[in-house]
């Protein structure tokens, strides 16, 4: 009896954790993903060695593949924590690069 109650509570916790996993991964795969993809596109547009309009267009055209692959990675990654740490890290790095390049030479 008591045992069943414990395992019942355990399975409730497991289910609750699973729900949170899905919610957190969904947030990462949508909002976080859009932010990171935008930064990747922005940095590509700044740093690709083409004319500005060509670099912007190249980045715009590729960003959908980037977004899709990142979304798949978010759901395939081993842990949610890993997803968030890596996403935040890359976003910060790209954000700094973008900021530095904007400081170095302005926009048209």
């Amino acid at each position: 009896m008591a045992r069943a109650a414990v395992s019942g509570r355990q399975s409730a916790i497991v289910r609750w954790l699973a729900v949170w996993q899905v919610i957190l991964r969904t947030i990462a795969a949508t909002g976080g993903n859009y932010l990171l993809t935008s930064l990747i596109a922005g940095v590509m547009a700044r740093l690709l060695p083409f004319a500005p309009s060509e670099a912007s267009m190249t980045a715009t055209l590729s960003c959908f593949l980037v977004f899709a692959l990142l979304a798949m990675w978010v759901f395939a990654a081993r842990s949610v924590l890993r997803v968030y740490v890596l996403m935040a890290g890359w976003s910060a790095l790209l954000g700094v690069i973008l900021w530095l390049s904007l400081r170095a030479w302005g926009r048209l």
Partner: protein
Amino acid sequence: MKAGLRQSMAWLHTWTELLLGWLLFAMFLTGTAAYFNDEITRWMQPEIEGEADPIDSAIGAAAYLREKAPNSPSWFITPTSERQVVTNVFWRPAPSDEGGGRGRSATLDGQGTEVELRDTRGGNFLYRFHFDLHYMPVIWARYLVGVAAMFMLIAILSGVVTHKKIFADFFMLRFGKGQRSWLDAHNVTAVMALPFHLMITYTGLVTLATLYMPWAIAANYADSGTYFEALFPQDAMEATGVAAPLTPLRPVLEDALSYWPDGHLGTAQVSNPGDTAARIMVFRSPGDTVGTRAERLVFDGVSGALLSTPPARGAARETESVMVGLHAGRFAGPALRWLYFLSGVGGTIMVGSGLVLWTVKRRQKLEDPDRPHFGFRLVERLNVATVAGLPAAVAGYFIANWLLPLDLEARAEWEIHCLFILWGASLVWAVGRPVKRAWVEVMAAGACLYAAVPLVNALTTSRHLLASLTKGDWVFAGFDLSMLFFAVLIGLAARRLALHRPRERTPRVRGAKPAEALS
């Protein structure tokens, strides 16, 4: 989620597809129909037929506009073409004009006379619904459609990972085996046209790319206007206010055509007609090249001299132009156009069968399959209304075009209302009936509606199937025959479903013989 890449991809695939599946189904269906946009419009305006020379039509249209809108800042003339029997003109009214702001448009015949055609949005409604939806602000519709397309891209890519055995499965089509058959239908339509689906989804996103991802442009341009100006130089000038007669159009258009050997005339734009600053921009027909950002020549509107030729495009720009062109398929001749259409039908079936598969798969896992929970029933009913109801409603749209009184106020809008009323009715029916009956009945109704389209055509106009077949009018004959084809297709599906008896849940399976299942 902990259980390996394939499982998590399968999970992702299932849920992304379901969440936006209904919208994607509608997008696929109307987008597929839009490959015959011009032909549908011609069928829906049976008053006019025949052919007219594009240059003559453009000259006629310019005469019409000189009369109607001499002070307009710009005219747009889209003359007749291989696929279009009328000339469409659009103009911005002069600021001083009554009513102001909003652009006006008219439909003209080959001589530039305004023609009395029934008020309809024709195939253009299906084309616009594909990305603008209806009854909602366009901008929100486009975001929604973009989210759906992105889900579709993720569903396709994760679907490829899920169905690694997909090529083995491909040779093991199992008809008449319940869930297995739905899965096979889903896989076969998905794999056969996988390159098409991937292409159409990606290029679809590209058509509205700068709306969804403006940041790559923002990174280089403080004002996106600068970017678009660099891409599409306007060349129009401020009006000087000094009157000067517009140069005759024929030499200008003939000049333009000689610039493009084998080319065709697209839209001609005249800015500041009757002013010394007049310019004539002649676009090449989008049917001429895969790339859709049509080439453009600029002429002086007073002297008729060629001022500028299309600037060379960079590789990325050219890629974008070709991607959008591949999506819209305007370059496609009849054979390729049909291939586009059939691929689109395949895509529609793929999304539809994926939606059905979702419920078939889950029904077996339900605690009490005879009394499913609310969420499951909701999905089931929405599936009926979408997969069976929407095609029926589109047939209703065509029938409304023939049956609504010609002098009805806001007639074009009412045709569209008819589509949505029918679509809504199918949902009400799906909710009110046992689900299997609802499938059969809505599909049967759809088959009847499709069969009725050529019939109503025969009863209300002189351009019925026999007449168009003997005349060799392939637009009308093709349309009527396609309607009959869909009537048979949907009818057969309804019949199969009606005769289908679910197998008993016994360990010994009395499997259907393949031959019998195929019939």
